[in-house]
C-alpha cells in the first residue's frame, strides 16, 4: 500500500502537470524602477538635457510675469547668459543637483 500510495501521488501530480498548457512566454514588462542611475552616461545626459530644456520652457511664463519682460527679451537674456561659461556651469550644476535630489525622493517613496 505504501508504494501504491506514493506512486499514485506521483502519478496525480504528473497527470496534472502534463495537462497544463504552457502559454508562449510574454514580453518582459518594462520595469517602472529603471531610474536615471541605471542608464548609460549618454542616456543620462540626454535625459538631463531634455529635462533642462523642459525646465527652461516651464520657467519662461512665471519668469516673464515676475520680471515684466516679454518672452523674446527673456530669451535674449537667457541666450546671453548661456554664452557665459561660468554662469551656465553653475546653473547646470544646480539643475543636476536638483534632478539627483528628485531621484532620491522618488527612490525613497517607491521603497
Amino acid at each position: 500500500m505504501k508504494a501504491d500510495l506514493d506512486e499514485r501521488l506521483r502519478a496525480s501530480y504528473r497527470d496534472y502537470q502534463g495537462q497544463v498548457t504552457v502559454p508562449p512566454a510574454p514580453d518582459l514588462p518594462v520595469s517602472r524602477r529603471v531610474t536615471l542611475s541605471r542608464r548609460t552616461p549618454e542616456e543620462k545626459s540626454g535625459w538631463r538635457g531634455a529635462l533642462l530644456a523642459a525646465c527652461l520652457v516651464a520657467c519662461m511664463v512665471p519668469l516673464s510675469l515676475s520680471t515684466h519682460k516679454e518672452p523674446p527679451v527673456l530669451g535674449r537674456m537667457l541666450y546671453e547668459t548661456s554664452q557665459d561659461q561660468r554662469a551656465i556651469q553653475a546653473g547646470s550644476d544646480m539643475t543636476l543637483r536638483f534632478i539627483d535630489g528628485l531621484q532620491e525622493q522618488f527612490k525613497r517613496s517607491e521603497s
Partner: protein
Amino acid sequence: MDRNVYSVMMHELPPTFAGLWDTWYARIFTYTREFSGLCYQDREELTQDILFKAWTKKDSYRPEWAPATWIYRLARNLCIDTQRKVQRSQGKQEALDEAQGASPVYQPENHFASLESSREVRNAVETLEQTDRELLYLIYSEEQSFREAALILGTPEGTLKSRLSRARAKLRTILEVES
C-alpha cells in the same frame, strides 16, 4: 539525460526568460494549486508574476542552492501574498479552482482511468491542510529532499517528517475507504 541539460536543470537558471518560462511554467502553475482560494485565472496571473519576479531577481540567486529551492521560496512568498489579497477582497471564499469544475484541466468524464485515479488522489489531498499539500507537492512532484523542503517552507526537517507521516496516514485512510 545529456549532462549539460541536467546541469542547467539542476544547478543553473536558464539563461533566457523564454527558457525560464518553458522550464518552470507548468511546475509553478501546479504548485499554486496548493493555495486555497485562488481561482484558475488568479493562478495563471500569479505564475506569470512569479516567473517575472524570478527573472528580475535572478542576480540574487545563490548557486549553493538548487534552482528549485530558490524559485519555490520566491513562489511561496508571492503565493501567500496573493492569497491574502484575494481573501481580503473576497472575504472567506471557497476555492473556485477545479474542484468546482472551473478548470479546463480536470474534466474527469473525458479522461482515462488513470486520470480518474489521479482525481481521487487529488480529492483526498485537498482534505489536507495547505502546508501538508505543499509538502506533498515538493516531496512527490518535485522530489525535493526534506532539507530542501525545510528551506522552502521555513519549517524544521523533523516537523516536516512527522507532518508527512500524518498526511500519508490520512490519505491512506481516505483512499482505502473510497476504494
